[in-house]
């Protein structure tokens, strides 16, 4: 019931403390390729006295590997007060990594016995990794009022477990698959089974918290564990970049309220 005070009207605004939430997004990083000792080097800049030492570059590929994971999750949120809310949930993540040769194929040393060495020609490797994670987040709004567009910051932790991984070796000569497929997969390093990240983020909530609303945020995940492999082909980097969108559905009878005034 609005109260008349001088030339202003005081209102009471209420919104549910609890809301169901769903998230969608991607995390990307410019990682470093895993050095695979079974691959025969296929290019070099050999010494030439007319050139300088910078020409000693060699390697089977540029040592950079862009790595992206897409994710979707379920993440309910609860407002502690007008400024702080907490959220926790489950996040499903997926990555597809392809490791190509910079030439037509790799020469992969598959076996070395006494005086015989066996190479096989491989077009590329393809790996699908599936993760299940638990995000724990604290959201900090910069203003008390639930405006239609509201700025916030976020910090949190994210624990992530590898729940499935499959690798395909694409041979130049398909007849080699039956003989060497399992052996080569065993020679590849396994992606890390567990990782932990700290997250700092900022975003914009769009819509009133009394009705279904959403937000969009940019995150900077910081890896808390060293020497991690994001896949068999790429090292995890200390920092990455993520974009996340959320959709919320307010629920529950417990409410927060505040008063505000408007001009008559």
């Amino acid at each position, binding site marked *: 019931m609005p109260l008349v005070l001088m030339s202003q009207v005081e209102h009471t605004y209420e919104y549910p403390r609890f809301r169901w939430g769903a998230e969608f997004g991607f995390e990307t990083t410019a990682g470093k390729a895993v050095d695979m000792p079974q691959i025969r080097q296929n290019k070099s800049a050999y*010494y030439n006295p007319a050139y300088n030492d910078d020409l000693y570059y060699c390697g089977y590929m540029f040592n950079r590997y862009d790595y992206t994971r897409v994710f979707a999750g379920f993440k309910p949120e609860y407002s502690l007060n007008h400024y702080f809310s907490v959220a926790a949930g489950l996040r499903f993540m997926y990555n597809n990594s392809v490791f190509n040769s910079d030439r037509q194929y790799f020469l992969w040393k598959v076996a070395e016995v006494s005086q015989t060495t066996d190479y096989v020609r491989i077009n590329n490797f393809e790996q699908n990794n599936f993760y299940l994670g638990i995000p724990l987040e604290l959201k900090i709004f910069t203003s008390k009022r639930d405006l239609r567009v509201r700025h916030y910051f976020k910090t949190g932790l994210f624990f992530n477990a590898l729940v499935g991984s499959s690798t395909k070796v694409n041979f*130049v000569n398909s007849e080699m698959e039956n003989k060497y497929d399992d052996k080569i997969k065993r020679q590849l390093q396994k992606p890390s089974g567990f990782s932990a990240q700290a997250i700092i983020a900022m975003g914009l909530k769009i819509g009133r918290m009394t009705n279904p609303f959403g937000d969009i945020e940019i995150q900077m995940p910081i890896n808390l564990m060293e020497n991690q492999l994001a896949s068999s082909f790429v090292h995890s980097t200390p920092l990455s970049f993520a974009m996340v969108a959320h959709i919320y559905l307010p629920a529950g009878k417990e409410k927060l309220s505040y008063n505000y005034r408007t001009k008559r």
Partner: protein
Amino acid sequence: MKKYFLIITIAALFFSCSKSESQMDKTIFIPDEIDPKLPAYTEWGYNAFGAKLDRQYFLSTNDLLPCKVLYKEGLLRFSLIGRYTSTENTRMTLTFCFPLEHISQFSDLVILNDKNYELSLSNIIVIVNKIGYTSQTQHETTDTLNIVEGILHFRRAQMLNIDDEQNRAILSGTFDFKYLDNNDFPAHFSDGRFDMGINNDNFYAY
């Protein structure tokens, strides 16, 4: 119509040429960690070699076939062909000749596995051939070296199969020797290492 046929023919030739390029035939230079002007010692068949002659470098290059092996009359001639860096245009061939039991094809070279040759022995000959170019004049010298001491060591000789088909023999090893030249002036080939693929293109037996 003729024009299209010509374009298609040229394109087909171009792509067929690039597909025939073999990674195994190239010289791959992997720098040594201690002395990056020398190739690292490897056993992959990178077709690279390197050595120091006193303080200059004798190295394989991509424009010269770096190794030839000739077996004739019970002698194996193992030649390393490259550039000597004291003057830019000097092409140098270092040949080791030593007796070997009968071989007839490159796959027989695996008998060299872990063989040492004492180069000062009288039945072993080491020859250096140099071809230099100065102002459009070619100078060629061939010296049989008077070895004072030194060893040629085939650390590993192996057969390489690619997709289960025999491809080539790989000879990897090291050498180090001191010698007196024709003027009795001493010199030292040091830190020598090689990693050579040998197949029908560079193996000869008569």
